[in-house]
């Protein structure tokens, strides 16, 4: 499986095959490019079918549209964030350093002070510094829609699939669930939005929430979701990274439904497309692409905070690729209405549960 595809040792020095511009020629401040980008992913790393992959899509899009070079690193634990940030910064070769994920906040708060001339962008949190462009998502807004959608669906009779693989809601009992990963402030905003959305739809719909304590434990996610389904939940929404696959598995086992997060998980987890009604997507592509564009065009705005909510299509409720069509248009229209109300400021979405 592999090895060098070209065995004759020509020394054009362009390293690997799984990402262009990635290899030993980077990091030396190539003068022929418009921008050199340093990319530091969140802990789960590439291949997470979610957050990091979305960020990388933004980067690759920019690579197609502009003349850039880049270097990507995937830290293994949170202690490495600061070191990579500094490593990039210290070299002085990068026009922009992109920090993906709120866990980088603390490290960046210090790095930004230590390298005042370096431009940074960070996604999912705010670092107050003149050289950092901040992009935060209004996850609570997207989650509100999801909560609203779930509550409506839980009260209707939704049956999908044939005899041997039938899944359905129970309209007599209206329960929906939320599974969080680590009990952190960011994840709580998902929970807050979701619960508010359910409440807004119908105060009688019950919400069960719990946290697994980890983003990496799908087995725990499965058990958490299973007990929710066991208690009558029709739909479980998760904001728990890798743990979430367990939620889908549980939905599959129990003939129930689930809702994905970050990316359209009915596409990124095709094996579970038959249980994923919708996903709360966060378009991480957008800030990554935008910040690169700004850097090239000289319009990088340090100290700015860009809030990406429903209005800017930073977050959205997208229906499942396979079963999304089964949701009635009435419900979809209702959801659209609510979306508009949020954008218009008619609904105030809380940030804490």
């Amino acid at each position, binding site marked *: 499986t592999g090895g060098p595809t070209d065995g004759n040792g020509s020394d054009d020095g362009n390293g690997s095959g799984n990402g262009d511009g990635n290899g030993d020629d980077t990091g030396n401040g190539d003068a022929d490019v418009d921008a050199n980008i340093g990319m530091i992913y969140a802990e789960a790393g*590439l291949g997470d079918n979610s957050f990091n992959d979305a960020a990388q899509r933004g980067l690759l899009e920019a690579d197609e549209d502009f003349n850039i070079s880049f270097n990507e690193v995937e830290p*293994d634990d949170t202690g490495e964030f600061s070191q990579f940030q500094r490593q990039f910064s210290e070299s002085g070769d990068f026009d922009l350093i992109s920090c993906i994920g709120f866990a980088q906040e603390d490290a960046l708060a210090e790095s930004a002070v230590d390298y005042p001339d370096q431009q940074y962008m960070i996604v999912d949190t705010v670092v107050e510094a003149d050289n950092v462009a901040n992009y935060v998502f209004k996850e609570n807004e997207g989650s509100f829609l999801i909560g609203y959608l779930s509550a409506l669906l839980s009260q209707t009779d939704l049956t999908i699939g044939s005899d041997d693989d039938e899944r359905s809601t129970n309209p007599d009992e209206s329960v929906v669930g939320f599974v969080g990963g680590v009990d952190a402030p960011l994840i709580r905003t998902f929970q807050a939005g979701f619960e508010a959305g359910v409440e807004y739809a119908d105060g009688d719909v019950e919400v069960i929430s719990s946290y697994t304590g980890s983003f990496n434990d799908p087995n725990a996610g499965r058990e958490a979701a299973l*007990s929710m389904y066991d*208690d009558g939940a029709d739909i479980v929404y998760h904001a728990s990274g890798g743990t979430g696959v367990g939620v889908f598995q549980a939905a599959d086992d129990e003939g129930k439904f689930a809702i994905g997060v970050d990316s359209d998980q009915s596409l990124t987890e095709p094996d579970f497309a038959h249980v994923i009604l919708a996903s709360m997507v966060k378009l991480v592509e957008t800030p990554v692409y935008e910040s690169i564009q700004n850097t090239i065009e000289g319009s990088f705005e340090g100290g700015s905070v860009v809030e990406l909510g429903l209005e800017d299509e930073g977050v959205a409720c997208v229906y499942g690729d396979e079963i999304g069509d089964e949701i009635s248009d009435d419900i979809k229209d209702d959801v659209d209405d609510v979306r508009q109300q949020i954008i218009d400021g008619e609904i105030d979405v809380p940030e804490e549960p």
Partner: protein
Amino acid sequence: MRENAEQNQDQELKKSLIDRFKSLSYVWQIIVGTIGVLALIGVVGLLFPASPAGDLARIIFRWSVFTQALRISAPIALAAIGGIFAEKSGVINIGLEGLLIISAFTAVLVTAMIGPAETVAFIPAIWIGFLAGVLAGVILSALFGIVCIEFKADQIIAGLAVWLIALGLAPFASTLYFGGRDTGSLGTTIGNWPIAIMLLSVLAAWVLLNHTTFGSYIRAAGENPKALDTAGVSVSRIRHAGVLLSGFFAGMGGASLSLSIGLFIGTGETMVEGRGFIAIVAYLFGNYNPVGAFGASLLFGGLDAIQIRLQQIGYGIPDTLVQTIPYIVVILVLAFVGRTRIPKAAGKHYETEE
């Protein structure tokens, strides 16, 4: 006067109950204690259904919670049984965590390589993957055995090394093959088979350890290897066998863990998340008895399952605090119930004279 006498009698009764409890064997103490606590919760819960005890009782006496407890406990119990064989034979294997990691990963890798939907000789790929996971556990434990028995490595240190190697190797290999530390979903699982595998393994391990010659050699190798040696049985062979069995059972545990959900996650501490260490606690807690280790694993699984439900019925306690309950229980039990008897020669090298 009479009251006094009654009180005395009462105290006598209490004292004799406690005495009687204390005279029970360790494993029975735990069993009796657990049943006692459950019964207490049940009774209080019945009397005061609105109290937290009522909630607790409703959670505990529920079939789905029980199956959940079984499922959570399966990988732990399997690894714990593996640990018993190694340590009973005289080799302390604290690398169980590493064995779980490597087997969990290999099981997914091989299934993915074959193609999850394929079959090989009528065996579904996922079961080939399962076997491959077990094999990976056995191979890594074989390496550990050689290092410990032939090269007389310090067992604790070598065990740590096994963990660290697996912790690096699995995500490393995953990145090479799958392009990320997480493998992504296979789209197929082995369902609830791990429960059956665990129950069978408990039974098999118990018979093997207590009713076969091999079992008595294992026990002798860990208690007094010289006795075994002078009886003409090679201590190092028995110890190798014990270590390989630890890889075998832990391998089933790891493969069960990843294949019951159909993917491997290599981020952070990997999806194994300390289950190997909990397994060590489980077998120490279960006093090296496969049935005891199973009971201890079930206790952890049960506490975990209860913990999930407690969160969900919305007790105002922070979730993280609720998740801490199992660990605190272990410490309390260790402090107040008793201790386990480590095999006398465990951790010590044995040299056949010449």
